[in-house]
């Protein structure tokens, strides 16, 4: 009986302890932590309800994340070449002809236009600046193209212009991110990553998303503009070096024959597959696949990335000089990559930021040089794709991250030494050409001063929706589950620009 009484006291003691403040807080901390952890873990794929990812029920996609997938809708194109002019070319010197602006040259900008607007560098009331180039109409479509682009103007009937694109970011980095990932902030996958995630790559010896840069600088937004964001990192763009060996350490070291390498990789993969049998972790299979992919890339990459052996007429057409870093070389490479089944080729050319702060950014000097450097290669690329029948199922997109102001830049209120324009978000020009695009069209118009679009305004998300549409996706249904909700490239916006579709 004495013992029973002791036991009962102990029980009572334990019950009371549970009611103490210390115990309560301890409990709360532990359980809240658990609550907080649950969604975090599920976003990492742990405890996710997706049953086909659990256990050994693996699809071909788990083993090879780049294996091709059919698109949900009938595609018009299977590849994209995206030519991004980083820094943003002036639409007012290239495509958007504004004769009214000549009249008002050097007159103060109407204040009604400036109300509520913010510019990167312009302060106070700037003066309007007339077009610095000579414009004329080209082709049957009568598209206005300036004399800065003498070669391209002959292809006016092959492209569709979007004259009233607008964005909402006036600094390079965020605007580039917005253009390529659908969000001005970091962390979202780029267009090319979405596409390779959705379609994989047809050529198993080459990556699905290749990035080439020129102009001496990578874009301001850094490598995130071709990053994979929350998608598995295997979908990020593979940047090839513009000079020297395109992919480092791809060649076999001297004295190591290919057979030996093959047997090394076979042995590693054998150990890895034993490891997989033991643990069942799909990441191990992905690893095995990457070894094999690297081995296969050794066959095709050196061949496809080599332009030395291209015939003379091709070098003449593109204006290529092997061994140099140039936009022309990249254009030729883009054609070769698309020909070999690469899904998305992204070209960045730096140097279009025509502020007029020095000679290289002057509208009548530096910009003309940039135009000269790209005019022939772009025209050559379009013609070469056309004569090889590749333009039937390839989409070519050209554009910057925003446009340039109809006003001359007055950096911090001072007069500039050269003629230049500031960043402009309200209206700029982009063009598309290739499969599914209505040739020789122009959609959208800007007001008399070229300040903002008055008709056919299209947003960055509209352009992304259109590109996805041409590749066979519905941008509203093409999603990826992350942090507990599905994400889209076009966020909650975007409408297909039907007016430029064939």
């Amino acid at each position, binding site marked *: 009986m004495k013992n029973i009484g002791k036991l009962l006291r102990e029980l009572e003691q334990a019950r009371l302890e549970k009611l103490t403040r210390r115990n309560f807080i301890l409990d709360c901390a532990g359980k809240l932590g658990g609550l907080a952890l649950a969604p975090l873990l599920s976003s990492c794929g742990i405890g996710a309800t997706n049953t086909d990812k659990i256990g050994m029920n693996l699809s071909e996609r788990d083993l090879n994340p780049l294996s091709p997938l059919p698109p949900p809708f009938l595609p018009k194109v299977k590849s994209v070449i995206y030519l991004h002019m980083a820094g943003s070319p002036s639409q007012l010197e290239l495509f958007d002809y504004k004769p009214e602006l000549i009249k008002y040259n050097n007159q103060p900008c109407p204040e009604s236009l400036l109300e509520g607007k913010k510019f990167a560098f312009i302060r106070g009331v700037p003066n309007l600046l007339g077009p610095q180039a000579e414009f004329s109409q080209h082709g049957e479509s009568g598209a206005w193209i300036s004399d800065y682009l003498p070669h391209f103007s002959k292809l006016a009937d092959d492209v569709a212009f979007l004259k009233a694109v607008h964005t909402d970011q006036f600094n390079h980095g965020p605007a580039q991110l917005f253009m390529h990932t659908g969000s001005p902030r970091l962390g979202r996958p780029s267009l090319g990553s979405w596409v390779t995630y959705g379609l994989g790559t047809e050529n*198993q010896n080459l990556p699905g998303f290749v990035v080439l840069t020129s102009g001496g600088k990578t874009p301001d937004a850094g490598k995130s503009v071709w990053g994979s964001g929350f998608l598995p990192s295997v979908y990020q763009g593979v940047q090839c070096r513009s000079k020297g060996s395109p992919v480092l350490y791809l060649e076999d070291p001297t004295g190591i024959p290919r057979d030996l390498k093959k047997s090394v990789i076979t042995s590693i993969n054998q150990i890895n597959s034993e490891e997989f049998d033991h643990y069942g972790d799909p990441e191990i299979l992905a690893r095995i696949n990457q070894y094999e992919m690297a081995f296969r890339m050794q066959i095709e990459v050196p061949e496809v990335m080599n332009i030395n052996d291209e015939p003379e007429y091709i070098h003449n057409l593109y204006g290529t000089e092997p061994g140099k870093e140039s936009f022309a070389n990249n254009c030729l490479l883009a054609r070769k990559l698309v020909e070999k089944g690469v899904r998305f080729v992204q070209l960045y050319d730096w140097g279009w930021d025509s502020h007029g702060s020095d000679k290289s950014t002057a509208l009548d000097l530096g910009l003309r040089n940039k135009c000269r450097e790209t005019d022939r290669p772009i025209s050559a690329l379009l013609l070469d794709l056309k004569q090889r029948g590749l333009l039937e199922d390839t989409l070519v997109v050209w554009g910057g991250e925003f446009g340039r102001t109809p006003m001359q830049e007055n950096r911090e209120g001072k007069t500039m030494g050269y003629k230049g324009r500031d960043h402009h978000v309200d209206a700029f020009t982009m063009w598309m050409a290739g499969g599914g695009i209505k040739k020789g069209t122009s959609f959208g118009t800007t007001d008399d001063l070229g300040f903002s679009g008055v008709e056919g305004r299209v947003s960055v998300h509209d352009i992304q929706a259109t590109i996805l549409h041409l590749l066979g996706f519905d941008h509203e249904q093409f999603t990826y589950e992350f942090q507990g909700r599905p994400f889209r490239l076009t966020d909650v916006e975007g409408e297909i620009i039907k007016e430029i579709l064939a």
Partner: protein
Amino acid sequence: MLNFIIPLIGRFHPLIVHLPIGFILMALLLMYYPKKDKIQFLPAIETALLWSCITAVLACISGLLLYTSEGYAFSTVQNHLILGLATALICLLLFFQVKKCKTINTPKIHLNSALLGLFLMLTGHLGGSLTHGEDYLIEVLPEQVQSAFGYTGYEEFDPIALDENHWEEALFYEDVIQPIFNQNCRSCHNQKNSKGGLLLTSKETILKGGKNGPVISGSSWEKSELHHRMTLPLDHEDHMPPKEKKQPKKEELELVKYWLASGAPFEKNLAMAGVTEELVEPFFIKSEVSIYPKVELTSVGTEKLSNVRDKGFFIEPLIKESSLLKVSCINFPDFNEKDLELLQDISQNIVFLDLSRTKVNDQVFESLIDFENLTILKLNNTHITGTGFEHLHKCTHLIQLHLTETEVNLLNLNLLNGHPKLKKVFAYKTPASKEEAHKHEFTFEVMFGNFELPVLPTDSITF
């Protein structure tokens, strides 16, 4: 003063009917349940039958009162009424027979009790259908069983769908207005459920209008109740469709307005009524143009696909869940025409075939005869010369032929002339492109390429 009595008694009908049901079942059970010695139950049977008769007559009276005071149509209650009366009569008959014969073992009594049981069930079921609705029991059944009964459940109506090219011929009422009613109004204004006495299901009923008179005014659309109620503020009590229901689209309202304004025509087509394209444009069905043939084929199983893939081919459905296939030899450079046999049994399904950069020769064309639905064929960078192009006439769907950097000459290219569908041939960097090609006439477009960009003085000016 006391005229409420009659409807009140009538409303007791659903209660009273359960009494005869109970007594009659009781009597029948007593008559047939114990197989032997039934005779000792005779007084009980008589009593049960007596009460059955009394309550059945009461049920009939209350039923008749309900029928007259609630304004049911005779056609709706007809069967229930007749069967109910019959049940009561048979019940009376049976009672007197049993009372007279002092037995229950005559054929007449057996017949009458069988009839009584049957009529009781039928009357009860019909009465239930009147109060709970005819679908009461069917609704809960699985769909397959429902359709076996010939019951289609909730009717689905198609929204307006106009052909982009022939919209003018569509009938204004039948193809546009009625679908709008079907989508937005029909759930409350149909034969079964006509709220406010209004049926929006046919020309006659629409013209007839509802309880409060016609909904269409001949003189002007503004006076038409139909449009007026639909355009009242959403919070207005009389707004139609009710606030919580699905609301019509702005474009649909515009069309209803235009229809009423043009005098609510029931027979005119859209062009005759003067409808502009702008008004109906949102309802066009965009016909998806595809260069690939529209054929119904059996899908190729995933097992077969991975078999072909293991051989080195790239093979994928054209789009998700399509039976049409896209095949390429992009990672199969050793492919030659003999390997085409691997594809023979799925040749019908292949619409896109890329044999570029492989080791095929001219014999390939003979093997391609079976590829009936082939639409795009790529043979770039191969050794073909085009001898055997005549076989491609059998590929009646072929639209694009890619021959860049091959040995095809002009003579062989001519073999393709007259192909039924062929639209584009790409022959850049072939012997054909070097010959006097441009004077030749083809029934298709040929791309010889050889584009050049002139050297301009500006090419070398550095600013």
